[in-house]
């Protein structure tokens, strides 16, 4: 059953993942000098050395611009579409606990986001680490900011997942979890003590959202 459910979740989200990967490809290629969309490619006219990968280039902005909508749409589609089409009744009547069904959804969607979003960082990292690509030294620690965005935007995925499963009379109020998660994600970005505070805050945000998702799924009416 686990395999069938994972397969179903992947089939329903593969289109979103494909679009996100295409957008990530544009971001990475534009940073490596292959400009598919010239009007989006940053230029550095006064910089003789050129941008330093992950530090003073446009990768982080591009990466965040793709990751945020990708995570939000993915989380929302996984839950809101089930509500809109009435398929919760079909899905939740499968002989598995509600917690297990939601865990499969979260692991599949969360795993898909983390895998797809890690790919451009790893590819760009590989490019930056190759000799002769750019006129600056490169250390793996320079990618920390990208990994911070990668992990904390995962909180937005969970916020959107919660927004989709959360009942609400007014559509706007349903989006509160996304907005709350977005505020926390932004706050985490500006925390200077990443290892001591930022990572802990990210994990705490994720844990809070997961607990809330299971609570809502257990207590709400699927009608």
């Amino acid at each position, binding site marked *: 059953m686990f395999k069938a459910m994972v397969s179903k979740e992947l089939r329903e989200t593969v289109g979103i993942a494909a679009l996100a990967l295409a957008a990530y490809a544009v971001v990475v290629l534009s940073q490596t000098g292959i400009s598919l969309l010239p009007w989006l490619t940053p230029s550095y006219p006064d910089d003789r050395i050129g941008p330093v990968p992950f530090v003073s280039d446009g990768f982080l902005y591009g990466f965040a611009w793709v990751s945020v909508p990708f995570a939000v749409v993915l989380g929302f589609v996984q839950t809101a579409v089930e509500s809109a089409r*009435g398929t919760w009744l079909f899905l939740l009547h499968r*002989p598995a606990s509600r917690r297990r069904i939601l865990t499969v959804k979260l692991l599949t969607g969360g795993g898909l986001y983390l895998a797809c979003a890690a790919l451009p960082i790893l590819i760009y990292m590989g490019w930056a680490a190759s000799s002769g690509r750019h006129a600056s030294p490169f250390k793996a620690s320079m990618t920390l900011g990208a990994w911070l965005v990668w992990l904390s935007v995962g909180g937005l995925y969970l916020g959107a997942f919660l927004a989709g499963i959360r009942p609400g009379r007014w559509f706007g109020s349903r989006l509160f979890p996304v907005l709350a998660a977005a505020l926390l994600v932004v706050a985490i970005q500006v925390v200077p003590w990443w290892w001591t505070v930022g990572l802990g805050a990210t994990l705490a945000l994720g844990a809070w959202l997961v607990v809330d998702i299971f609570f809502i799924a257990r207590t709400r009416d699927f009608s």
Partner: protein
Amino acid sequence: MPDVIVTQRLTKYYDRRAVVDGLELRIAQGTVYGLLGRNGSGKSTAIKMMLGMVHPDRGRAELFGEEASRLRPQTRARIAYLAEGHPLYRWMTDGEAVRFARACSPTWNDVLAEQILDHFALARRAKIRRLSNGERAQVSLALAVSTEPELLILDDPTLGLDTVVRRDFLESLIQIIQRRGRTIFFSSHILGDVERVADRIGILVDGVLRVDCPTDHFKDSIRKVVLEFARTPPEFPDCPGLVSRRAVGRKLELVLVGYNDGHRELAESLQPASIEVIELNLEDAFIEYTRGPRRSLPILAGEPCDVQSDGIQGAA
């Protein structure tokens, strides 16, 4: 026979209105039970509470002795549920839907699934989003029945189907019932469907279960009495068993549950020119029963059913 479904004082409010109000049901194993009611009478909500999809505000529901909101996966595997409108994943093909349902069911019967799909002439490669409502209902039935359930719960399964498809669907359902002898609980607002299939019925009126008795007993209990007068009809007095009274020209039409000598004497005391007692079919009985002054409807339960001075009491 043990009870498969038990509900006690099951109640649900939406916007401070009781959509299901104190539902008390006991469905024995092997029963084919039809839950009737007009649109918005609370049938779907009652079924969703029985399956743990909706939480009751008061009361409880049990399936196979387990509280509905805490059904173990093993127990859920013994129950098939066709939700209203047959929600399925529309991007799947028929074959993919079968494979998905099979992977989720420990008691899946491949041979039976193939037989039902062949019976309905459903193509394995057809996308569910391209199927008609009737075909989607047939796929739903195939997925539900192929799990070899001990209890089949269907929420208005023929809703939106045309007459021919509905008849075909019900005949297939009857075949399945006869072959397997399962407990079936289904809701409908189409009386002909219920009459063909159910051996016991319940009628929900504004969330209240007003009738719970064998199907034939319900038909036998309701009579339409037409009193014709040479003048304007007088008022018919309140009495136990009176569902509705309506003056049409010089005629007074009464609908009575458990028509007896007391009713006849009361009618004769008004000195009508003639008294005609009409037997109703299930559809007419249902319409007359549910369009009466709703909150004052007599409650019909069990078998036999006697009219007593304080209302209608049934010995189950």
